[in-house]
């Protein structure tokens, strides 16, 4: 698998941003390694691949619906799962999308800053089983209103059959995506600035490999 962040942010080999990313080689390698561990695990355990891609497509659909990451994860889901699941997840993300982060503070001095908002309940159906429905609810919480999190949300996962190990992996997966889509988003914006500056400066050669 080529470097997912470079691919999604349109960073070509030898471009200005390629050189800048190369100054943090360990971050680059291990962001990619994180992707591979979470989305191409040697042993998926109690968290099957189709569910991982479904959670990813839903998470990106909630947090970054205009990101190229959405098509990327939706495609992974379509290749692994069935079309009905991909359609169901896309529809849920569309329905549940809203600005974030919101949520209520539990610290007494911060309650004035609370922005209460919805916690979603996703009923299991033919396309989305009970195990996945609980994971999607958790992904919504982490994506849009993480400060609302409470032990009851972990109990909900537990009662849907999630082990402690798999809950940690689920949390890592949603949280890693929250990182990945922001790096992509930020580097896309930066890449655009770098490219347009060079295009507007006749003393600089145009960097053809800089974007796709």
């Amino acid at each position: 698998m080529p470097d997912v962040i470079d691919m999604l942010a349109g960073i070509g080999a030898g471009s200005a941003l390629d050189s800048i990313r190369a100054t943090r080689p360990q971050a680059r390698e291990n962001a990619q390694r994180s992707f591979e561990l979470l989305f191409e695990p040697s042993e998926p355990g109690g968290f099957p691949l189709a569910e991982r891609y479904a959670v990813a497509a839903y998470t990106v659909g909630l947090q970054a619906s205009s990101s190229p990451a959405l098509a990327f994860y939706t495609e992974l889901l379509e290749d692994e799962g069935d079309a009905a699941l991909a359609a169901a997840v896309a529809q849920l993300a569309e329905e549940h999308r809203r600005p974030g982060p919101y949520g209520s503070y539990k610290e007494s001095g911060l309650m004035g800053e609370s922005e209460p908002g919805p916690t979603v309940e996703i009923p299991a159906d033919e396309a989305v089983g009970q195990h996945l429905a609980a994971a999607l609810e958790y992904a919504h919480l982490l994506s849009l209103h993480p400060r609302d999190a409470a032990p009851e949300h972990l109990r909900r996962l537990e009662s849907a059959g999630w082990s402690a190990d798999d809950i940690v992996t689920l949390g890592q997966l949603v949280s890693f995506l929250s990182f990945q889509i922001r790096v992509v988003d930020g580097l896309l914006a930066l890449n655009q600035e770098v490219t347009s500056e060079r295009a507007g400066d006749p003393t600089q050669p145009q960097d053809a490999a800089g974007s796709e």
Partner: protein
Amino acid sequence: MSVVTEYTEDNRPEAFTQQGLGWKPWLQPLAEDELTEQQRASLLDDFRVKSPYFRLLVRNPEALLARTLVDKDIFYNVTSGLPRADREIAASAASRVNGCVYCASVHTGRATKESGREEDVQKLLDEGVDADLGEPWSAISQASAALTRTPSEFGSEQIQQLKDAGLDDADIMDVIYGAAFFNWANRLMLSLGEPEVPSRARK
């Protein structure tokens, strides 16, 4: 038996603080004396072996190790790019927006330690990410907040502000990385446990 713990006693801090806080897990960490070689190796440093948070994340040792290596390079690789304190400001602003009181305490504390500017750092906690922190901190704080929000508000305006504050493209990547990484870290800390005022500091 449930692996989820709920605490009857609430020892959360009252508000955002630079004072050192504790963190209590809701999901059971692995016991220190039962760690396998691989788990222990994935924790990398002794302070992570002692930490309930990292002993919880080590339930997926490889994912934890990759996460930690990303973290170290973004915040501690000082061969080039943004000064350490400025990276901690990006981390703190993301934590302030997401509402991670624990993460904010650790990283504002580090920003103060690296810069000696305790009062400016406290403004970020008390007044929020739009507080006047002086430059380049105000630009960094606002850019980090913009990238943290959903949908993202980060774009050419924030990049221009960062440039006006003296940052080059490589520095800006450090801001993006610092903010993005805390969107990873905040979600784990907020969803797997709660902050507490350590018993030695309670009245």
